[in-house]
């Protein structure tokens, strides 16, 4: 390795009841692209927060260019050239895009007053550089989609002449195209001697971008390897201690009903999607995939009543249903796991258990109207176990969980209502590879029990592995329906989707 830029040595950190990090080392060279890999709750974000001066390590040292950080001030680490994109993005929802992007620059230069012209100029340049110049500088960040928020957080880190940029799952919500673009930026930075520490659960990304990989498991460093010496299976094995294999999902045609569980006929909505028709049988896992702006998220939001369609009809078990808001949808047994759930749907300070059962509290009412707390606890603990939520105690507040484990709580919450049709928009965003399998298995079990599942994913491989039928969307239309997923390959699907996107089909 070339010259060392950052060195973390013997880092240990405990939270109440959990040893999050235990004697972990991490070394990043100047201009190196390094990946940090580990399962949910293994301590990645904690290590990053310690580097960033957000948490103080119980023991160990962080040295940047030979100088040791005092480890308790964010600004110290920023001034030493480290920029971090945190897993929760750490944006200011109440402020504009321009200010959110420029805030680091404003703070680092230690100026006392604000030059708004400069603020806008910095932001404009940053967005241009990342190829997203169309985002309005004056929009408030709270009004942006998850993907755009990530773009803003990335742009912000790029405004500084950083020497190391740390990305804690900064690519979980953005599309393949945007990731590709980001990677070319990272490669360019590398040429200028700027290092990147990259965290992602999408192993394909890890292999594509990194030179070296540090793997941690349960707060301990397992090892550091040159990427060229690893392959997918070996990495998964080192990371999880298990071998994981995917089998395609086979639909049992005996479950087919005369009238489908859900049928959508000629749904259209201006500027979003056109003439969408499809049906779903009990036991089916229907995959919908396509690039961003393909309309996939919008259509499922319409089905769930969040974004009512302009025209079209919908049937459940052969009977027409009208759904104009999520309450109607839930009453008809439709549930939606939304795409943007990093900040959504959790009561931060409340316990993990309460968060899971909050939607089904009425199931625990005793005759006299009191809650049966024993039953409630048992149900919560069941879900904690079933989804392998990593916590010493279900009574701890939900914000003590790692990012991926918080996601599982949201998943558990929706599963607990036991819907007939379950729509999952990106079911495994931010979930580690080992747990992905667990979650996929749960989804399959639910389908086998007769639930109808719609799964939306960016990852074509995920759709291919788990769905028996697949819809490909582009620019608001269904461009192809694949009746048996076993008859195709991910390369073929990827080609169809990107081909259609570049051929100017009008929506």
């Amino acid at each position: 390795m070339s010259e060392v830029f950052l060195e973390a040595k013997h880092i240990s950190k405990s939270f109440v009841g959990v040893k999050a990090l235990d004697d972990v080392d991490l070394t990043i060279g100047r201009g190196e692209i390094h990946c940090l890999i580990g399962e949910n709750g293994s301590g990645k974000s904690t290590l990053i927060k310690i580097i960033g001066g957000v948490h103080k390590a119980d023991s160990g040292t962080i040295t940047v260019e030979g100088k040791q950080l005092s480890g308790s001030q964010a600004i110290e680490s920023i001034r030493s050239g480290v920029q971090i994109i945190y897993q929760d993005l750490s944006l200011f929802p109440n402020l504009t895009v321009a200010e959110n992007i420029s805030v680091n620059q404003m703070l680092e230069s230690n100026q006392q007053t604000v030059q708004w012209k400069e603020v806008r100029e910095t932001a404009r340049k940053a967005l241009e550089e990342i190829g997203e110049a169309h985002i309005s500088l004056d929009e408030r960040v709270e009004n942006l989609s998850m993907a755009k928020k990530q773009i803003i957080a990335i742009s912000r880190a790029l405004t500084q002449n950083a020497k190391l940029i740390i990305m804690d799952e900064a690519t979980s919500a953005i599309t393949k195209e945007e990731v590709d673009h980001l990677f070319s930026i990272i490669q360019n930075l590398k040429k200028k001697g700027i290092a990147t520490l990259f965290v992602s659960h999408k192993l394909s990304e890890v292999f594509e971008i990194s030179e070296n990989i540090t793997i941690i498991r349960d707060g301990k460093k397992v090892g550091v390897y040159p990427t060229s010496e690893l392959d997918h299976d070996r990495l998964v094995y080192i990371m999880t201690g298990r071998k994981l294999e995917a089998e395609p999902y086979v639909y049992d045609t005996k479950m087919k009903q005369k009238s489908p569980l859900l049928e959508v006929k000629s749904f259209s909505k201006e500027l979003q999607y056109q003439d969408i028709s499809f049906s779903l049988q009990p036991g089916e896992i229907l995959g919908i995939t396509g690039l961003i702006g393909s309309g996939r998220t919008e259509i499922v939001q319409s089905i769930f009543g969040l974004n009512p369609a302009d025209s079209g009809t919908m049937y459940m078990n052969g009977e027409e249903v009208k759904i104009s808001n999520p309450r109607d949808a839930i009453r008809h047994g439709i549930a939606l796991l939304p795409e943007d759930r990093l900040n959504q749907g959790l009561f931060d300070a409340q316990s993990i258990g309460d968060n899971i059962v909050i939607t089904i509290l009425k199931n625990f009412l005793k005759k006299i109207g009191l809650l049966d707390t024993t039953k409630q606890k048992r149900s919560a603990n069941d879900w904690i176990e079933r989804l392998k939520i990593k916590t010493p105690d279900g009574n701890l507040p939900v914000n003590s969980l790692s990012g991926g484990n918080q996601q599982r709580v949201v998943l558990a919450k929706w599963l607990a209502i036991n819907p007939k049709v379950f729509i999952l928009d990106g079911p495994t965003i931010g979930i580690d590879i080992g747990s992905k399998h667990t979650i996929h298995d749960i989804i399959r079990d639910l389908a086998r029990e007769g639930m109808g599942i719609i799964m939306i994913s960016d990852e074509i491989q995920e759709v291919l592995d788990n769905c028996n039928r697949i819809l490909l969307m582009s620019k608001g239309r269904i461009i192809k329906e694949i009746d048996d997923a076993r008859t195709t390959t991910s390369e073929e699907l990827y080609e169809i989707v990107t081909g259609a996107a570049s051929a100017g089909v009008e929506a």
Partner: protein
Amino acid sequence: MNIKQLMKHNETYILLIILIFSAALTMINPVFLTLENMFDLLRSSSGTAILAIGVFLVLLSGGIDVSCTAIAIAGQYISVNVLIATGIDSIALAFLISILIGVSLGAINAVFISIFKLPTLITTLGTSSLYHGLLLEVVGTKAVNAGDLPESIKAFGKIEILTLTRADGSSYGLSIFFLILVILLLLTWFILKFTMVGRGVYAIGGNAEAAKRTGYNSHKIQFFIYCYAGFLAGVMGVMHISMIRYGNPNYLVGTELSVIAAVVLGGARISGGTGTLTGTMLGVILITILEKNLILMGLSSYWQQFFIGVVIILGVSITYAQNKFQARRNLSIGGA
């Protein structure tokens, strides 16, 4: 700005309510819409408006401050007593002492909130009672009559920056209080918009953890907020006594709810991060009109209290509903 954009702003609605209310009042009593009455309204609401600026800042940062009136009365009562005791009849000294007291008491609030990380409501509830209790115990409970009041203070309250003559030769005018308010408003606006400390207030109100991570100095910002609110309360304290020309250490305390109501009504979110000075001022105007005219309309001051409560609840619900509505709209265009 077109109508559609205007309708997105909270301020537009309050302005409409004020206009409708004023129109109704003018119909009942044509005197309402005279310049003289307007000047009077400005004079009597300047104090509340200045306290509201401080409360607005605190709310913006995600906190709440119920101690502003206790600080104002402490500044007022102590400074006036010092003037009387020393025999130095100087309005400047009165302001200086009152402001020093305000800033110090604000700093004490900041110590609890920023360093000991206590919740802002609990802290200011506690210190408010503490400051007021100490004031009554240590400085005394004796009221200051107009006769004992230093001349400079009485004179200050009568200064007019614009004097107009009535038909009968007598005159009325725009009080200096209005000028002070305008200067403080401009100062606050400048701080909030053009200084890093001001942006930090928005930042910690929007996402306190992120503010820390991006390198804002939260301690410094919180000290600034509470000291500045204390400074405003100090200014208001002296203004108040020079207006009513009577000092009673039990005045003001208890009116903080009206101030908070005005700010909330002005569209500042209770959860922090959003709101405007314009909205805050409109909120103050509305509350003042309400308070004054409810009494004129023959309602007791108990009813007045009741209405303040209604206004707070309504104000909070409306902002809440608006946010929810907006969140839903955003969800539906989430993919865009």
